[in-house]
């Protein structure tokens, strides 16, 4: 049998993503983003994102079909992100996906955004990479997961108790006078700074925290430490060395993320680590992960940066895996779920 042709729709935050895969071959991955419209607000404004999704939807769908050079009637299934995410943004995608599935008479797979971030690895690593530990790091999420089957069995091991890692990047960037989104800005400017110049705190790494929060994260203390540090410099009328502060902050985040990810691998006896989500596009995170995984004998997978940030290809991929593994399709009239737990890979 010919491998299934699946179209995926992602609208959980500020990216309108449409991906098309045949089996695990990527045919198109088109993205429209409203990120520039949010910059002057210092963060994603849900209503602005939702309006932008509605405008971008059809042009992005059309472009993806053109790039993939497919006819809609050849599609075997439609997949869509049902959560977690911004409810008004999610609903644009789920409504469009429902319409597409109904118009074409094809099955619909409503999928979990976080599971989709994990599943996208299959485009580069193949269909059967489980079991693995997944570290998902983005502006909205920071989680360590045990993945036995990305379509059916994803178990949380730990997560952030306050800010997401990407959120910490945004907040520290703002403090340093860098534009939104902060991740790419800090990554860029940190490359010219001394990352060992300032010793910022590593959340939940003390002996006391190890017992209760061995695999959890906390970044709000780090963000406050950077703020206090900058305030101290201003009070003493000293120069604010932005590259050094950015590099030292980034090093603290990366250090904790990788240390805990490797601890999860050891604890679960799993020798494969996947890192996904927008922060996985960070160049320092990628290079530290490579170094330490090699040292620890852990097989590392990090999708290329374009597949780490939000996209439609990951949604199509999870839909394709769901079909390949004979998972039931989603009944029409399902609810979009802003707080969808990671344990629910498919709806």
């Amino acid at each position, binding site marked *: 049998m010919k491998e299934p042709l699946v179209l995926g729709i992602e609208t959980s935050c500020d990216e309108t993503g449409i991906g098309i895969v045949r089996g695990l071959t990527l045919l198109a991955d088109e993205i429209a983003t409203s990120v520039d419209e949010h910059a*002057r*607000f*210092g963060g994603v*404004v849900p*209503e*602005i994102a*939702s*309006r932008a*999704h*509605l405008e971008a*939807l*059809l042009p992005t*769908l*059309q472009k993806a079909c053109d790039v993939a050079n497919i006819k*809609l009637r050849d599609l075997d299934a439609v997949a869509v992100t049902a959560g977690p995410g911004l*409810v*008004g943004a999610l*609903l*644009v*995608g*789920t*409504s*469009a*996906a*429902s*319409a*597409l599935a*109904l*118009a*074409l*008479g094809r099955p619909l797979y409503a999928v979990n955004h976080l599971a989709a971030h994990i599943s996208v690895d299959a485009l580069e690593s193949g269909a059967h990479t489980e079991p693995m530990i997944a570290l998902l790091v983005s502006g909205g999420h920071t989680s360590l997961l045990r993945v036995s089957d990305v379509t059916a069995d994803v178990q949380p091991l730990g997560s952030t108790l306050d800010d997401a890692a990407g959120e910490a990047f945004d907040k520290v960037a*703002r*403090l*340093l*006078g860098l534009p939104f989104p902060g991740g790419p800005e800090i990554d860029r400017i940190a490359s010219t700074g001394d990352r060992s110049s300032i010793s910022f705190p590593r959340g939940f790494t003390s002996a006391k925290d190890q017992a209760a929060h061995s695999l959890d994260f906390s970044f709000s203390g780090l963000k406050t430490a950077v703020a206090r540090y*900058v305030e101290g410099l*201003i009070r003493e009328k000293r120069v*604010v060395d932005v590259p050094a502060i950015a590099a030292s902050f980034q090093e603290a985040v990366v250090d904790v993320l990788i240390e805990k990810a490797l601890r999860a691998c050891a604890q679960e006896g799993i020798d494969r680590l996947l890192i996904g989500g927008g922060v996985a596009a960070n160049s320092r995170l990628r290079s530290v992960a490579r170094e330490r995984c090699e040292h620890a004998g852990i097989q590392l997978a990090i999708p290329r940066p374009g597949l780490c940030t939000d996209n439609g290809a990951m949604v199509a991929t999870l839909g394709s895996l769901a079909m390949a593994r004979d998972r039931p399709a989603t009944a*029409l*009239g*399902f*609810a*979009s779920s802003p707080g969808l737990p990671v344990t629910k890979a498919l709806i």
Partner: protein
Amino acid sequence: MSRYLLAIDTATTRTSVALLDGPHTMVEVNREGATGHGEALPSLVAEVLQNISTNQLEAIAVGIGPGPFTGLRIGIAFARTMAWALEIKVIGVCTLDALAFDYLKDGLAPFGDFAVATDARRKEVYWAVYDRHGIRQGEPVVVRPGNISDRLLRLPTVGSGALLYSNDFSANVEPIYPSAAAIGRLGFAKLDGGEELTTEPLYLRRPDAVPLMSSPEWLR
């Protein structure tokens, strides 16, 4: 020959879906609920389309509000995508016009000018005035009932907003909710009248968001 048109409206607390064959309404189904348009709409559309193939549809008409943002987008995203997939026309219809259409019932307004008011939350209504032929007098607005002149408040007023603020709208009359059947009839009129077909949502309000200070204090 049949002329099938799918009509939907999600601009009020009612999700309304109808299948028309020309001016004749074959079936209309409704579901109540301020939230839940996203769950209701696909099921209701599947229900009205159960006896025809989607390929038989000639066009889709959709209420473009004004109405609460999330509901509006659910209907418009659905209508646009389905029409795109089927390569048929999609027609936007002002939701208040559909209420006016049902009030007239193909006749003349019994007491001359009238108004339509739907609930805009935050103590406001989406509101427009119509003449006795059902021609809208200007663009719809979002307004506090207290800011409408006494003369216009006394007009017969249809819609959920008139009922909700019945102290202001002393002459509130039925219907309370727009019907997809009326959206469909008005959709056909636009389609056959060669009017420009736009499905831009009538938000009437800007997003609530406050820009940040441009830079941190130490840089200023």
